[in-house]
């Protein structure tokens, strides 16, 4: 069970149809239960890295295995099974505004119930229980029946997190989950992610834009530049030199969330 949460990149390479290189070559091992933060400038390949794990962006060469199983290259039942075990959180939340919070979270259970039940919105009691517990874990159970679009940004992201949790996943991928949020909410969400990782042991990979956030919340930091791994180490040991390697320039205020932390 533990190994199901391991991710391994071997020679992973992604070239888009228009010729742009998403990932040049990545070899990376992520152990079950790790909390990994990925940093890099825009276009460095952070999103591509995450999206290749659940097959949203297919690899051009190389392989990725999740829990020992290779990620299927084509859409189909096998890929859906894999995705059921991998929860994804997006920068723009990606919840359906017109539906209730509860329905949005239940979407996380679609791969776990028979198709007809999912289509008719008739969820078994067990799945509804899981959904409620997911909402409680992020603290918005009282908003269960509110129209999702009526919530604040931070609350909507929590719905997204609850949806991922409802999948009871082995892995959570968070693609710039706080980029659209204000500083206070940003810290709340980051703390939620860390807590989930610690309490439930879910392997968590988070793309972050702000360096100070990365250093503050990450255990292990991966730096990407032009689709390649240029840094892989603990959060405490990132130096100015490493930063220059990752971003190709010196850090400035724009790279920090809290201006006081700018060195």
């Amino acid at each position, binding site marked *: 069970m533990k190994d199901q949460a391991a991710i391994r990149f071997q020679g992973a390479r992604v070239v888009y149809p228009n010729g742009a290189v998403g990932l040049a070559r990545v070899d990376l091992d992520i152990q079950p239960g790790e909390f990994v933060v990925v940093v890099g400038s825009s276009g460095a390949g952070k999103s591509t890295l995450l999206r290749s794990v659940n097959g949203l962006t297919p690899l051009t060469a190389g392989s990725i295995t999740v829990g020992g199983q290779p990620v299927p290259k084509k859409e189909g039942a096998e890929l859906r099974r894999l995705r059921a075990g991998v929860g994804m959180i997006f920068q723009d939340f990606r919840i359906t505004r017109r539906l209730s919070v509860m329905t949005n979270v239940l979407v996380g259970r679609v791969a776990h119930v028979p198709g007809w039940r999912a289509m008719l919105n008739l969820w078994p009691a067990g799945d509804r229980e899981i959904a409620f517990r997911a909402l409680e*874990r992020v*603290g918005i159970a*009282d908003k*269960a*029946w509110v129209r999702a679009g009526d919530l604040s940004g931070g609350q909507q992201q929590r719905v997204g997190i609850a949806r991922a949790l409802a999948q009871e996943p082995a892995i959570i991928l968070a693609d710039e989950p706080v980029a659209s949020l204000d500083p206070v909410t940003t*810290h709340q969400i980051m703390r939620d992610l860390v807590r989930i990782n610690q309490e439930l042991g879910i392997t968590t990979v988070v793309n972050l834009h702000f360096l100070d956030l990365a250093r503050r919340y990450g255990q292990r930091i991966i730096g990407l530049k032009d689709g390649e791994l240029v840094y892989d180490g603990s959060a405490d040991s990132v130096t100015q030199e490493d930063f220059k390697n990752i971003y190709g320039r010196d850090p400035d205020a724009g790279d920090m969330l809290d201006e006081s932390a700018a060195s």
Partner: protein
Amino acid sequence: MSHLRDESEEHDTAAPRPLRPARNWALILGAAAAVILMTWWSARGIGFSLVELACNLPGGRRLLVESWPPDWGFFPRLLAPLLETLQIAVIGTVIGGLLAIPIAVLAARNLTPGVLVWFVDRNFMNVLRTLPDLFWAMLFAAAVGFGPIAGALALTVFTVAVISKLWSESLEAIDMAVPEAVRAAGGSWLAMLQFGAIPQALPHYVSYTLYAFELNVRASMILGLVGAGGIGMVLETQRSTFEYPRVTLIVLSVLVLVLIIEQISESIRRRLT
């Protein structure tokens, strides 16, 4: 991870779970019942029958086969009526377009000189829009006699209805800074319109007029069915004598004509924006 402990932000997991709010069953069932009832009533009223449709399909096939190929030889007789159709469309669009200007202006909340005028004009516009163009054609045909003039009048009314509704909405959306400046400089209401308001909405006016012209070319093929001139009159005679190959020819010719006009109109409108 010790730095996480300085924020004492713990989620209250002990809060009671809210119950699902009761759906407004009255509204949902009521709406569903209304739709179902309406559909059942309508289907019965018109004699809707899939069985009958299926039975009639062979007959339909025969009709379509009979209608094809079109009677190409009949085409020369269409040229004059098609031309007349275009002429009706031009006249209807031009007169209607001119008349639509004051009617649209008076219906624009930000430009109208008075509430009563606006109210009357608004309702007048709505009434114009309620009657289909063919009704106007029938009325005018009865009033001034069969022929293209009746058609032109009917299209005039139709054009006024279309352009004034669309353009009054454009006028309501203009930037009021310039018209107010004209007023502030001592200009009259007309001067405000001429220099402040209308120039802003002019491109929309041209666009809507072209659109109305397109609609009018389509409509004028039909107006003749009730005697209002144009190709429709030929269509009616051929239809009532069941000359379907000729009917098909007419339909094709009109479609081609409409397509050509649409292309020209599109390219003009694209040049505007």
